């Protein structure tokens, strides 16, 4: 589903985000990206979501070579990759419902279908009763769940999360991870960057540890 062939990313500032990464994630696999800040976790996720482009090597997502993807196809690629951020990235002048509906509105979905899907997504993250609230009135954990509902509402085959529990206490973090495990069980390929090693170890999933832009260790590399 996701494949990196000797991928490097050097930023215009000269900083090296990735220094040659080979990686393969099978469809339906769930993996954690760990490592110190600056090890390249965010860069790796950005390359998958095409927020950045690789300076060397090839990135494949969903059988597409991202290097060859035209600018006008980037939005369509992003619709297949749900992204979850540490700072939630919610629109604070819109209701929870409208925030979650955004990917569907962008994709031009019909009104009735949007209603149905958004309710289903909010139900999964247990926020159905908050659909009319502004995000600012919610707690940090609830805001993160809105972000998660938005990422999964369009049922993307790939879900990425960058430090999704970074600002949450351990109990809420565990709740969020539980959600991710549930999504993975219905077949979503998941890649989650985190430095919460204790939590990750407790889940027994594949762990890819990055260091200075390279894969230092990988507990379950599947055959490439």
């Amino acid at each position, binding site marked *: 589903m996701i494949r990196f062939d000797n991928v490097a990313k050097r930023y215009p500032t000269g900083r090296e985000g990735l220094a040659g990464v080979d990686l*393969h994630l099978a469809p339906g696999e769930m993996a954690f990206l760990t490592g110190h800040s600056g090890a390249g976790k965010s860069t790796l996720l950005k390359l998958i979501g095409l927020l950045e482009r690789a300076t060397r090597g090839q990135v494949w997502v969903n059988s597409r070579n991202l290097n060859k993807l035209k600018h006008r196809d980037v*939005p*369509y690629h992003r619709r297949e990759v749900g992204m979850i951020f540490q700072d939630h990235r919610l*629109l604070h002048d819109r209701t929870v419902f409208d925030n979650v509906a955004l990917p569907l509105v*962008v*994709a031009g979905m019909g009104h009735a279908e949007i209603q149905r899907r958004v309710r289903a997504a909010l139900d999964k993250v247990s926020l159905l009763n908050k659909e009319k609230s502004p995000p600012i009135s919610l707690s940090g954990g609830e805001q993160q769940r809105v972000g998660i509902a938005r990422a999964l509402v*369009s049922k993307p085959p790939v879900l990425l999360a960058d430090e999704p529990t970074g600002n949450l206490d351990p109990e809420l973090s565990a709740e969020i991870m539980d959600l991710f495990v549930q999504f993975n069980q219905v077949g979503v390929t998941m890649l989650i960057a985190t430095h919460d090693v204790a939590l990750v170890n407790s889940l027994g999933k594949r762990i890819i540890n990055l260091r200075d832009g390279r894969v230092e260790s990988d507990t379950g590399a599947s055959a490439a």
Partner: protein
Amino acid sequence: MSKGKAPKFRRNRNPLTWLLRHAQMSLSSLGRLSRNPLSTLMTAAVIGIAIALPSGLHLMIDNVRNLAGGWEGASSISLFLEQSLDDSQAEQIRHTVSLRPEVAEARLITKDQAMDEFRALSGFGSALDLLDRNPLPAVVLVRPSAAASSAEATGRLARELEAYREIEMAQVDLQWVRRLDAITHTLERGVGVLAALLAAAVLLIVGNTIRLEIQNRHSEIEIVKLVGGTDAFIRRPFLYEGIWYGLIGAVIAIILVLLALFLMQGPVERLVGLYQTRFDLTLLTSGTFLAILFGSPLLGLAGAWLAVGRHLKRIIPE
């Protein structure tokens, strides 16, 4: 599997959905503008004034033109006859002239009539009594027929009549009409230049307003890009905003022009009354009206497009 044939992206190409989305987008843009009524109206008012100015001037010149045209049609030729002719000879000339096809009417003012008129109008009454003979010539006033009423035809007619031995001089009361015509042409060109400059101003006003709007909604644009919004999708609300600004500006411009016409109606009637002609201010012709109503939104769209093209590309999600 990763190197197999890549699946095609699904694109929505249903024209009905597309149309519906545009309708929704245009309404939601209007809704966004109506949430800040004061700033929206101020921007639209600036556009309205910028458009009303050349439109109003154009209208005014048009009206003066019409007026001058009316006078030109009524222009006449004064034929001053030789002093030596007596009244019956003068009458004969009048008759000859009146038979020409280009002449609608020829009226004789005899020497005595001319004297009486001059005496009554000039106030030299008693002084004129001192003259031993009437120094005024008889005059034939010629009104050209409708077919010969153009400035050119009237001039030609005058020259031909002047060739008569009995006619000392033929004078066309037309020169000033031509001058007025030339002046209005010059003014019209000036208004054209002004209109072009103000159109550029409207473009910049809308462009700048949209640029600020894009800045204000920076994070929103970023998030829409993150969830897979196409450039067209992101562009659309801003383009519609430009169109709405233009349309509201057009309505304001039309109201301003009508208001100005209403205010001028009284003085103009009094002025025209002094010249003893009847004259109605023409309102906006449907052509000008449509030009404002469609041109202004187009300018708004173009202004928005300029801003959007330059600034949306710069927003790259992180």
